[in-house]
């Protein structure tokens, strides 16, 4: 009940924030433009593809790249969306007021997280709607599309969890956004050094987000990848809840 109350309140606040709408509008406009370009390219190469035995189809050339583009945008947009969730509350003095309602810190974090997820789900659905409107006239690879959608959803959920943890760590929304962006980029590229040295398959490769996302975008759903995402979502949320609990001790 209290988680639902927090989620409802946070969703309401997201809905009336110009920032959330501006980010959504810009992101969807950019994705629509990318979609039109990909679709044009796909139509241009269709004759050539028809001659190939195992040619990539609409899903490989239009739908999955569109989801990959959404993820790229999310690197920047999600930290901006989450930066004020707790840092803004702390700055405005409303965080102690929320604490005084007797809601456990983890419920507060989960409630806010679910609100961000609901907002991101709308983005994902709006993005998916673009290739899906042509589903009748193309032959989508439904399995691959479902796996890529799952990968995109899990990546968005991970970015949101990291954003909330960074927002819980500071009283300055701008610092929270910068911190979330840095953490996300680190998680994305942490194995670059190992790759450059010709080392592969080690811990750093496992730690890297792109390793697990690429499998899902290729249509491959495996337990280790799902476990990685589960950990990458749970850990920041636990840290955020611990940080809020510590607020009662420290301030």
């Amino acid at each position, binding site marked *: *009940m*209290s988680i*639902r*109350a*927090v989620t*409802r*309140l946070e969703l*309401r*606040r997201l809905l*009336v*924030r110009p920032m959330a709408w501006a980010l959504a509008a810009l992101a969807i406009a950019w994705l629509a433009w990318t979609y039109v370009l990909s679709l044009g390219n796909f139509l241009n190469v269709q004759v050539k593809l028809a001659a190939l035995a195992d040619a990539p189809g609409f899903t490989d050339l239009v739908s999955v790249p569109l989801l990959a583009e959404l993820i790229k945008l999310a690197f920047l947009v999600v930290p901006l969306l989450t930066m004020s969730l707790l840092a803004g509350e702390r700055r*405005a*003095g*409303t965080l*102690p*007021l*929320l*604490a*005084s*309602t*007797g*809601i*456990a810190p983890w419920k507060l974090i989960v409630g806010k997280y679910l609100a961000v997820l609901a907002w991101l789900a709308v983005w994902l659905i709006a993005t998916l709607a673009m290739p899906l409107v042509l589903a009748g006239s193309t032959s989508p690879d439904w399995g691959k599309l479902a796996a890529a959608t799952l990968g995109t959803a899990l990546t968005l959920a991970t970015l949101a969890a990291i954003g909330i943890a960074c927002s819980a760590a500071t009283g300055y929304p701008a610092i929270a956004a910068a911190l979330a962006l840095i953490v996300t980029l680190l998680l994305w590229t942490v194995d670059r050094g190992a790759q450059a040295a010709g080392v592969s398959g080690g811990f750093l490769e496992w730690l890297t987000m792109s390793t697990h996302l690429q499998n899902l975008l290729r249509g491959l759903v495996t337990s280790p990848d799902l476990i990685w995402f589960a950990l990458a979502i749970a850990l920041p949320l636990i840290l955020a809840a611990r940080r809020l609990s510590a607020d*009662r*001790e420290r*301030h």
Partner: protein
Amino acid sequence: MTATSLLNISGVSRQRAGRAAVSDLSLILNRGQVLGLLGVNGAGKSTTLAMLAGALRPDRGSILLDGQDFVASPELARQTIGWLPEAAPLWPELSVDEHLMGFATLRGMTRRDARRATDAIVERLQLGELRRRLAGVLSQGQRQRLGLACALVHDPALLILDEPANALDPVQVGELRKLVRERAAAGCGVILSTHVLGEVTAVCDRVAILHEGRLRHDAALRDDADGHILESTFFAIATGASAA
């Protein structure tokens, strides 16, 4: 007395920014009682209230709320405590109505009960004309009234008010006093922190004076209607002339 008291604070201490903000504080508040909390700036009033509201955990000591350990179970605050912090922090992008509905549901009410409670408190605090207005465009006095409404919307047994008369005009101050007495008559315990001595004599049954984090005075006000004794006691403590 302890068994029936609404709030029983015993030996509570709290460090803030490396110094003792509150030291070894012990107090009892019964139902229907209005306690005035006085002290100069930095005396530890706001820290005390934040601990009583569940926003801060004491370093030492115990707080019993209706006989239950509030330090170990801060969730007890949910339905029992209403808190108006100093400067009434609000969400500028939400309307008066959304604040009240939000706080009522955060306090565990169903949507239907929250709607009913919101309507009642809006009528009681005469916020009807402001219902749809965003908190960000309210005047300081209107923000204060909204903060008070948020603290009262779930009909708490303990009401904690930190400088509630800030930015209120004389008519609203009179309304506030009436409201506090009304709540006390209904069995609610009220703690009112203020810098205004007249506020305490007008509305409180008891007064506690904090100085440098310590409780220096705790007495009933019944024999001090004009506030002379309180005034001399307060100034004696605040200026260090009292060894109490």
